[in-house]
């Protein structure tokens, strides 16, 4: 117990941490984790594969921890730019509550633990996809794309789009067309979602030196690109019905949601340059969060009904 009870350090230069468990939880980006858990769960349910509920719950847990680990690695690497952005300045590393190397160690340990656990609990295909997702987010997106190109979130968005495929693979042991469509729904949604945010937070990104679309290509170009993306975003959400994986009711619901997405993107396109409040961009950002949740909730409901009725 000596190590536990010791309250004195020989090295006077040693930094004594005041980090609480809540700070380490914050490193995992709980809000992103909740989206990962939800979409991975939808992937599992729509796979329509027989699975032990305990295995399913622990697989989801492993996927969530893996996603959180990549968040911790992101916060370790991005502490310098997080510190100058209002949205991220209070994160544990830039605020000094957690040391950068602690965040790195935390992220690495949890990455290894989550991948190993998913491999043992579910299968190694799902574990490999999880490992690739962590690598893609932490290395390809965070270390490479984010500071280099305004296409950062276009390509990097793949990291956030993998969870339904991982959930699918965890229970079905394979990757299917329907799983890939669920990937595409999130992948195509990511650019207009983040560019809407970047429009009204462009000052933050400018200060941090992050080449987001508005401060590289300009607001007018970003608005056009948001609108251009909104059309495939709306279209791809209907594809599950077109390939026979979801019901017509889902297809109609998704089409209505998609039409509203295009409408909000159109409002952003028509937004006056003098409008610095950027209400339309804020509205699109808020709606995009609701949109993704609603589409996946509908896929989930459709999957449960289809499973119960053995219809599709």
């Amino acid at each position: 117990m000596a190590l536990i009870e010791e309250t004195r350090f020989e090295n006077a230069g040693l930094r004594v941490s005041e980090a609480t468990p809540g700070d380490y939880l914050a490193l995992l980006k709980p809000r992103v984790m909740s989206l990962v858990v939800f979409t991975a769960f939808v992937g599992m349910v729509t796979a329509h594969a027989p699975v032990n509920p305990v295995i399913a719950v622990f697989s989801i847990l492993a996927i969530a921890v893996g996603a959180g680990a990549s968040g911790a690695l992101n916060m370790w690497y991005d502490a310098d730019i997080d510190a100058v952005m209002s949205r991220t300045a209070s994160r544990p590393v830039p605020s000094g509550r957690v040391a950068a190397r602690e965040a790195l160690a935390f992220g690495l340990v949890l990455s290894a633990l989550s991948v190993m656990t998913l491999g043992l609990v579910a299968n190694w295909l799902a574990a490999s996809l999880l490992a690739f997702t962590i690598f893609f987010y932490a290395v390809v997106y965070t270390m490479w794309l984010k500071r280099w190109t305004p296409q950062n979130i276009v390509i990097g968005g793949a990291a956030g789009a993998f969870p339904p495929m991982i959930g699918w693979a965890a229970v079905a042991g394979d990757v299917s067309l329907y799983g890939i469509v669920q990937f595409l729904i999130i992948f195509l949604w990511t650019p207009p979602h983040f560019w809407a945010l970047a429009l009204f937070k462009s000052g933050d990104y400018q200060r941090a030196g992050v080449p987001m679309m508005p401060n590289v290509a300009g607001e007018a170009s970003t608005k056009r690109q948001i609108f251009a993306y909104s059309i495939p975003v709306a279209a791809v959400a209907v594809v599950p019905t077109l390939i026979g994986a979801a019901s017509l009711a889902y297809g109609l619901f998704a089409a209505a949601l998609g039409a509203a997405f295009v409408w909000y993107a159109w409002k952003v396109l028509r937004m006056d340059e003098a409008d610095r409040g950027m209400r339309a961009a804020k509205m699109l950002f808020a709606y995009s969060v609701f949109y993704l949740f609603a589409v996946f909730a509908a896929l989930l409901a459709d999957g449960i009904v289809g499973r119960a009725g053995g219809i599709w």
Partner: protein
Amino acid sequence: MSVMEDENGMERKGVEMTAAQKKARRSRNVAIGLSLAALVALFYIITLVKFGPAILNRPM
């Protein structure tokens, strides 16, 4: 940095932890303990679910 005496009356230089630091460390210790206990339970349950009684049915 402060100068303190250890249990043998020897002077030692060191950092006296504040109440906030002690409290934070205690909460981290509790969280680590709970996490380890959860991991033990997790792998125990996974073993039962994946192998069932067959885990005992093997040549010695």
